């Protein structure tokens, strides 16, 4: 079966002052029909830009320098910068942003915002698109949808606004939903509700998901595949469970060791030494090497690429076997 979404060699160049740097550097992945992929990384690693590049919504100063996006076998016209893809193309995928309050139109009722795509993209009539908006409000779990149709974004709570954002994203009947930290601005009890809603929609609507987050604690709940990103590149990809249980890139294992877990309070979190490199001053070789405990002189010169390290599991590290040996003898790395 062909994947629903294929991303090949995506390169995004960002201009900062007078210099240009690669904020996303050769990202490739494929998403199975009905599958879900989580992309994890720290601030500035390029995870959100990757989503925006796929959607054709790069911010000012950003340019898609290379790469292809193929959805359902059709290669998207990625030439149109900053305005999203053309009609017919953007129907196939939608995006949900982190902060619904700034993504929603403050002077339009939520109902009209949801009805917009059915009316203008799907070409439904006024009453049909309205009925569809009400149905979508119900689908995303908003009680009393007929009344809420007339609400403005400011009248709603954060969780309900995010549900509205999801309803808008679903209004053009997409097959892929891109989620950019959709629960980061929400409280944990609301986060579980939104994650449950997304899981429900995956089944109900056979949606495929790309879920970007900085929180390793939510990835295993939302996606069966995981990609870890560092300074614009994917450094490890694979099935979520095996990747979290036995990471093969030192950055992934570092992130896991640095995270606190509510169930094991006695474990001391270990910070990754150093800090994120300046994207303008990236050198040859592995970008993580200055912070890596396994680094050798080769790491500074070799251009590391993702390579198969296990069944369906790839890592971009010259020493990925050292890491797996360390885990085998029970070292905590």
């Amino acid at each position, binding site marked *: 079966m062909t994947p629903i979404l294929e991303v090949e060699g995506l390169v995004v160049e960002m201009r900062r002052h007078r210099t240009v740097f690669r904020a996303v550097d050769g990202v490739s992945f494929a998403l199975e029909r009905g599958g879900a992929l989580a992309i994890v990384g720290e*601030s500035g690693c390029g995870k959100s830009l990757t989503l925006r590049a796929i959607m054709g919504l790069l911010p000012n100063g950003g340019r898609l320098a290379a790469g292809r996006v193929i959805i359902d076998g059709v290669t998207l016209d990625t030439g149109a910068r900053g305005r999203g893809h053309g009609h017919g193309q953007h129907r196939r995928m939608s995006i949900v942003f982190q902060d619904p309050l700034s993504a929603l139109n403050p002077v339009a009722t939520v109902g009209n915002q949801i009805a917009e795509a059915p009316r203008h993209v799907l070409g439904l009539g006024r009453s049909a698109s309205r009925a569809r908006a009400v149905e979508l409000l119900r689908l995303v779990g908003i009680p009393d949808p007929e009344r809420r149709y007339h609400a403005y974004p400011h009248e709603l709570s954060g969780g309900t606004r995010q549900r509205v954002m999801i309803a808008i994203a679903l209004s053009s009947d997409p097959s892929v939903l891109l989620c950019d930290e959709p629960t980061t601005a929400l409280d*944990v009890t609301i986060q579980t509700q939104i994650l449950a809603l997304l899981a429900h929609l995956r089944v109900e609507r056979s949606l495929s998901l790309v879920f970007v987050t900085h929180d390793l604690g939510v990835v295993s709940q939302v996606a069966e595949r995981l990609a870890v990103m560092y300074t614009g590149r994917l450094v490890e990809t694979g099935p979520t469970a095996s990747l979290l249980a036995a990471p093969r890139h030192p950055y992934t294992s570092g992130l896991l060791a640095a995270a606190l877990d509510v169930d094991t309070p006695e474990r001391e979190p270990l910070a990754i030494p150093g800090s994120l490199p300046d994207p303008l001053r990236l050198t040859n070789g592995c970008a993580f090497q200055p912070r890596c405990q396994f680094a050798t002189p080769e790491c500074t010169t070799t251009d590391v690429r993702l390579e198969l390290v296990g069944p369906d599991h790839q890592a971009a590290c010259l020493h990925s076997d050292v890491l797996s040996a360390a885990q085998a003898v029970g070292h905590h790395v």
Partner: protein
Amino acid sequence: MSKALIEVDDLSVTFRSEHGRSLRAVDDVTLQVAEGEFLGLVGESGCGKTTIAKCIAGRVAPSAGTVRFDGRELGARRTTEDRRAIQMVFQDPYSSLNPRMTVRHVLSELLTVHRLVPRVDIEARCGELMTLVGLPRGALDGLPSQFSGGQRQRIAIARALTVEPRVIIADEPVSALDVSVQATILQLFEQLRSRLGLTVVFISHNLAVVRHLSDRVAVMYLGRIVEEGSREQVFRDPRHPYTAALLASAPRLHQIELVRPMVRGEPPSPIDVPPGCSFHPRCPRSEEICAHDSPRLERIGACAEHLAACHFRDETSPEAVDQP
């Protein structure tokens, strides 16, 4: 429990909203913090945890109730001594530092104004403070923009420590930081506490962080403390359904199954607090009594230090609710 250093009694804070309605951010809260203790204050956005912190630090005046420090009541206008004794560290180290002042300027100004060390020793003291928070001496010449988020938070902590406080109130100090640097700041808090004997009130929505650091934990919902106890009491045996829901919803690294939501809906607006127990409209355990009778924060069984504000506090934790 050893002697209480901070005693908050029947504290309420009411803000006026634009339309003349009043918002009770803190509702009749009583809380003690013992000398040398690490208290975690937990709750979701808008529950009033920051407002309590600001009341203790003297940045917000209470509408009712008192704050006592070391046995003395702190009035609305505090003496310099009292203000020095309780210092705050904020969430966002990008906005809480003056972008035009070098670190040396920030620290030496405080040392001079408060006459903490003789003029000739200022430079040496600045260096000591840098060492204390784990920054190189050379960092004194930098401006905030030259540092990473974690380093800025260290600078903010050094600033708080300059005036030799007895209490640090940290308001979500690691929430704006990346995971890989959070751990270093948490370790710094632990070191400072053991080295300087500081009392810490640590506000966070992150239960994993609170469980890792705190001796005692207080959980807030809509302006009230709904559960309080030692770390192990609260995390191992939560007796308020809200605490249980928070704990179940906390992100977990190896959680493969989807978490079933424990509570319905969202917190109501603090302007329209529901009658009775304010949690009852969302509570999986609620019964008729909850709708009109507001439970007080009371001890569980014979346990003097584990308190919960729930009519069913003597029963065990509730089950998840089904919800799409």
